[in-house]
């Protein structure tokens, strides 16, 4: 027997060995272990694990006052959710609110005073230098007009009272507010009444019919509770009818029972035509007619306007207008609302329609808002635009709470040329066109105690407390601390002011208090005193005003001084307008009312999914793109009033043919809008594919 091993045997053995090894679990085990090993690199962040705790608070990012349930690990919040049963939000939070606990780590976060030069260069600044600059302006002021404007981004807070007190202490300083969405409307309403009337809010929760002229009822942050009211149908609360009259099919238009596309810039004509249809159909209620001083004059005015030629430009049929008029007259719980950004003629016409339809002082209509006990009255405060031109040495902006943006151009108009400075108390220093020289670091949500005065979808007011749920950064300021540093005096703390407010609520014995531990609504008088109220609010509860009597309609005029002339002029302009090649509509990013409060993880709905159109882009219907030879993603330039801005073109079938929808925000479009005062002519020029120029006419929506 030949026992020698041949070369072939060796090869067979080696081949069999390899095959056997492959069929054994060993290679798979090696792969598995190496996979586990390679997926646990030390630089991959691991969650911090520790005791889990739950607490309740209130979201303070906007004025909606939503209840928040906070889940914390190791004393740091890891997730937020709505408080089920909360009277303001009914368990909802918007996308922005869900990320409130991420703002403390925002890449634009400011943690020490900084100086900004040339718009972008940032260097560390000394607080003493900033205070010295403010004091210099204060002491150098000799003229009668104020040299320091203290601008409150969110009036109605406890901090607002401190800001007002500073203005009282310093003769050279004056208190002002950022433009308030509802304030212009309140001013317009007051012109109709001879007696003083409070602010009004639309009672969306009890309305059975809502006619909306572009109001973003479900778009963006702060609207989660309204969205639930409008869409979450139950047997106790059937879904209200929503008629959305808007040029672009927005998210609200998308979920409305009826969307009526209207030619941009003709919304006021549509509202006036509906009012006229109610009057001519003899559908005006006798109670309204009895309180009106000039019903006959209104009928004559609308007749003289000769609306039909203008109505034809709206793109809405007469039958549709009659149908809306009939629905508004037949439904007692109905209300007409307009976009807060709508121009004055639209606001005026919508108010007139509300008066004609008799929606004021009615459940499901426009209900008067009571004042919050103990709150500083800010409704009559001036805005930055009301100050004299080139009169201010210092503008102090309290941006510790997100509020309305002030157009960049206004700052340059109000500051003293060459010497004026802007100091912002803000948690962030994201690049923006506002000429801010100094940023003082402010606390963000969850770091320090602050208060939220909100309005519910039912038009009820509330007060809630945003409690500290994480350690505050040591060098950040709240308004009280900042003013203490500026004045060199001891200011009352936010807690002291809030306790005074709670004491005022207790002494008034008005309203109900939501207790999240029960969770129930109990009347204020059922509590033992201020301390018991304070304790409930600290635990995430809120005070909400009680049911208000419907109230009776005071005497009013349909046409206060100047309104008839204004509307006549605007209707005539609509009739005379030549049809633009394309109408440009600037809309706001519903999730980015304040860019700085946009958490990093919002990339999920922007860059990573395209759910929201990016700022600095224009959207057109595919047929429009084809007609003008532009393609998706084309680079283009948007020119308005001589300002040329880079934009991207996106095709969007929700934009009707004939329109160009530009997304507003912190991008280049916002820069353009700040320089636009009225209807302007411009163009969108595509440079990517075959060069083409689209002439556009801007209609401010």
């Amino acid at each position, binding site marked *: 027997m030949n026992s020698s091993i041949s070369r072939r045997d060796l090869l067979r053995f080696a081949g069999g060995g390899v095959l056997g090894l492959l069929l054994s679990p060993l290679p798979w085990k090696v792969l598995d272990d190496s996979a586990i090993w390679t*997926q646990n690199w030390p630089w991959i*962040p691991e969650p*911090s694990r520790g005791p889990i705790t739950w607490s309740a608070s209130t979201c303070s990012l906007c004025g909606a006052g939503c209840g928040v349930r906070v889940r914390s690990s190791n004393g740091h919040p890891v*997730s937020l959710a709505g408080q089920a049963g909360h009277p303001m939000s009914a368990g909802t939070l918007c996308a922005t609110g869900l990320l409130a606990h991420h703002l403390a780590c925002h*890449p634009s976060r400011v943690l020490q005073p900084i100086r900004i030069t040339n718009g972008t260069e940032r260097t560390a600044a000394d607080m003493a230098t900033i205070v010295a600059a403010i004091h210099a302006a204060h002491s150098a002021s000799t003229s009668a007009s104020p040299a320091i404007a203290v601008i409150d981004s969110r009036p109605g807070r406890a901090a607002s009272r401190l800001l007002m007190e500073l203005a009282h202490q310093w003769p050279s300083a004056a208190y002002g507010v950022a433009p308030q969405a509802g304030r212009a409307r309140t001013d317009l309403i007051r012109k109709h009444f001879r007696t003083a009337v409070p602010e009004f809010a639309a009672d969306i929760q009890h309305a059975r019919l809502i006619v909306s002229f572009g109001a973003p009822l479900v778009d963006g942050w702060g609207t*989660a509770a309204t969205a639930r009211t409008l869409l979450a149908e139950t047997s106790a609360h059937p879904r209200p009818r929503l008629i959305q009259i808007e040029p672009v099919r927005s998210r609200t238009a*998308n*979920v409305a029972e009826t969307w009526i596309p209207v030619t941009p810039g003709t919304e006021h004509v549509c509202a006036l035509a509906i009012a006229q249809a109610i009057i001519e159909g003899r559908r005006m209620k006798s109670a309204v007619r009895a309180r009106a001083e000039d019903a006959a004059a209104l009928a004559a005015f609308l007749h003289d306007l000769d609306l039909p030629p203008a109505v034809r430009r709206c793109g809405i049929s007469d039958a549709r207008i009659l149908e809306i008029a009939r629905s508004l007259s037949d439904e007692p719980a109905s209300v007409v609302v307009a976009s807060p950004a709508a121009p004055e003629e639209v606001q005026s016409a919508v108010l007139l329609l509300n008066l004609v339809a008799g929606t004021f002082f009615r459940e499901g209509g426009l209900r008067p808002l009571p004042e919050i006990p103990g709150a500083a009255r800010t409704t009559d405060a001036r805005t930055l635009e009301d100050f004299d031109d080139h009169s201010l040495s210092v503008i102090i902006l309290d941006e510790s709470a997100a509020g309305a943006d002030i157009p960049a151009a206004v700052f340059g108009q109000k500051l003293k040329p060459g010497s004026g400075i802007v100091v912002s108390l803000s948690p962030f220093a994201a690049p923006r066109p506002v000429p801010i020289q100094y940023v003082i670091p402010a606390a963000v949500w969850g770091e320090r105690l602050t208060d939220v005065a909100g309005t519910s979808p039912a038009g009820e007011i509330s007060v809630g407390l945003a409690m500290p749920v994480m350690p505050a950064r040591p060098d950040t300021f709240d308004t009280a601390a900042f003013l203490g540093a500026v004045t060199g005096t001891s200011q009352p703390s936010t807690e002291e002011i809030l306790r005074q407010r709670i004491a005022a609520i207790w002494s008034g014995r008005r309203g109900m208090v939501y207790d999240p531990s029960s969770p129930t609504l109990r009347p204020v008088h059922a509590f033992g005193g201020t301390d018991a109220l304070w304790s409930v609010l600290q635990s995430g509860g809120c005070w909400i005003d009680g049911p208000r009597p419907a109230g009776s309609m005071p005497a009013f005029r349909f046409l206060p001084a100047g309104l008839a002339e204004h509307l006549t002029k605007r209707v005539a302009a609509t009739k005379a307008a030549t049809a633009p090649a394309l109408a440009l509509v600037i809309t706001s990013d519903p999730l980015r009312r304040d860019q700085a409060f946009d958490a990093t993880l919002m990339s999920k709905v922007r860059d990573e999914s395209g*759910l929201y159109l990016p700022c600095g882009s224009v959207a057109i219907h595919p047929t429009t793109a084809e007609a003008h030879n532009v393609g998706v993603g084309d680079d283009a330039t948007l020119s308005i009033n001589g300002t040329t801005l880079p934009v991207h073109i996106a095709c969007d079938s929700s934009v009707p043919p004939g329109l160009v929808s530009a997304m507003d925000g912190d991008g280049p479009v916002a820069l353009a809008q700040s320089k636009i005062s009225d209807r302007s002519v411009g163009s969108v020029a595509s440079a990517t594919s075959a060069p083409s120029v689209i002439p556009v006419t801007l209609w401010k929506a």
Partner: protein
Amino acid sequence: MVIDLDRCTGCGACVIACAVENNVPPAHEGTTPRTGLTWMRVVRVDDGRSFPDTRSVFVPLMCQQCDHHTPCVSVCPQNAVEYDEETGIVTQVPVRCLGCRYCMTACPYHARYFNWWDPEWPAGMEQTLNPDVSTRMRGVAEKCNFCHGRLQAARAKAAAGSRPLAPDDYQPACVEACPTEAIVFGDLNDPRSTVSAAASSPDTFRLLEHLGTGPKVRYRSRSAAVRESLTRNSVSSEKEQVHG
């Protein structure tokens, strides 16, 4: 799970809640809708009619939790995708994943995502990570698992109480976050559950029903055009256009 498309406003709250709950990192520089990590995404779908009759719906898209012949399970060479017989949830085991992306190719709903980069959070934000969910690294696929961390916590709680897991013991983050209650979650096998009642509505349908994958995520819409379109056609998104 049943999603009422007539109630979805496309607000994105579900997308954000999902990312927070599951420690999905923010976009890396250069991320596009093709390469992003969105276990839950919302896509707008038009009904195909021309202006002004056109209407659109927002469709929340996540793993459809296929029931039969689950494509991703059958193609995974590493057993990194498992089908939980008790709950019917298709789970992903990232530590087993080799990154071959067969599962992404096999998934007809394009509901799987690949970590093209190591996860990064802005400094300090790692403190906000959910302690119940591990982070994943570059090179592995991931997807919606109906908030497995919440399920495990609910199981632990039920076990501590010496009782079986009840269908109402937990809800995924997207269900909890939806402001309009468009998403209903529960036990489809329990005929008394709300989700069962919703699933038996004649308005209810499944995406790409003809493929026979038996998704356990159902959709509903009163619009016949929407039902017809989504039952037969794939939901168009940039990711799908690229992946085919």
